């Protein structure tokens, strides 16, 4: 450590270090961007193949279109026997602490919500993060698309789960309007 450095000298050092760090991080971000994007697409496919048994991860070039602010409707041809198209909706919105991204899969014949999966969230680990666990998400599967979403909040994570519920409700409204 260098004692007795003048204040301006210290500020200069920290500024230089910050500039170097930012440059380095920007480089890392650019370098890893394609791989992160690929990992994200893989995850989407695996979530969809869970919801649609006929859907194999190899196929599935989605046509996607934006259906409003931060809502993305996906459609993919499946090679399954029924040739039913795979519909899914990605909703982005605010959780309690940061952006939440979730994927909703409808069951069009039965007019139900088949499954809800959290793709990304920034809720408190161990508390709000429980919104991304299956045990909680399963409360949404099987809910009717025709009625407003009503699911009990998680004890201890009331705000996070309320925010999450309202996102699902927002998605439900889009699904009944946009999907045939």
């Amino acid at each position, binding site marked *: 450590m260098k004692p007795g450095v003048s204040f301006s000298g*210290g500020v200069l050092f920290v500024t230089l270090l*910050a500039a170097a760090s930012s440059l380095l*991080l920007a480089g890392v971000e650019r370098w890893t961007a394609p791989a992160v994007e690929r*990992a994200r697409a893989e995850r989407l496919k695996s979530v969809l193949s869970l919801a649609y048994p006929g859907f194999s991860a190899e196929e599935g070039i989605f046509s996607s279109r934006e259906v409003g602010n931060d809502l993305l409707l996906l459609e993919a041809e499946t090679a399954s026997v029924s040739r039913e198209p795979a519909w899914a909706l990605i909703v982005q919105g605010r959780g309690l602490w940061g952006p939440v991204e979730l994927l909703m899969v409808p069951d069009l014949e039965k007019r139900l919500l088949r499954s809800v999966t959290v793709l990304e969230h920034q809720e408190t680990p161990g508390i709000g993060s429980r919104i991304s666990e299956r045990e909680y998400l399963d409360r949404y599967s099987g809910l009717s698309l025709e009625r407003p979403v009503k699911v009990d909040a998680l004890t201890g994570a009331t705000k996070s789960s309320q925010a999450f519920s309202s996102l699902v409700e927002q998605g439900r409204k889009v699904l009944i309007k946009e999907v045939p």
Partner: protein
Amino acid sequence: MRKHLRSFLLALHRSNPVTVGLLGICSALAVTSRLSNALAMGVMVITVLLGTAFLISLLRKTIPDRMRLLVVMMIVSVFVITGDRLLQAWFPLISRELGPYVGLIITNCIILGRAEACYLRSPILPSLGDAFIHGLGYTGVLLAIAFFRELLGFGSLFGFMVMPESWPRWSAMTLAPGAFFVLSLLIWIGKERRQ
């Protein structure tokens, strides 16, 4: 060689950051439900410690005394954010399992504590040695906790089933309280043995 190995193992035991220093407990509880997660976290912390030790030790004669904490945090953050990004890109599954705990390595007291106590004052090689021993000590404890938690909670090790199918899974072990039990037992045993 034997002597060196002995003193190395002794240092691992005597100055273990988790069981002796009681640092990094939060992450030790959070990411040890499976061995693979504990290993990934351990590797991340060792890497961050080594990188931080090298850079801080290299810059120790230029880092202004009264801004040292700021500088240490900045250097740690760069390593952690880079590591987090690499995990997201090439190990998305582990990245999702570890969640925010990777980012929280920045606030891991083991790193800040060692930087303040050692890297800011010592030459590069001793700093790297110190970083390695402390990182290894942390990883060792994490793996030990995860071993018992995964074995009892899921009946598996590194994802492979080793217990019979009929194994009654101790779900308490998969939750945070299970980690508390195992960690406190480890701390107790370590204390008894040191005396």
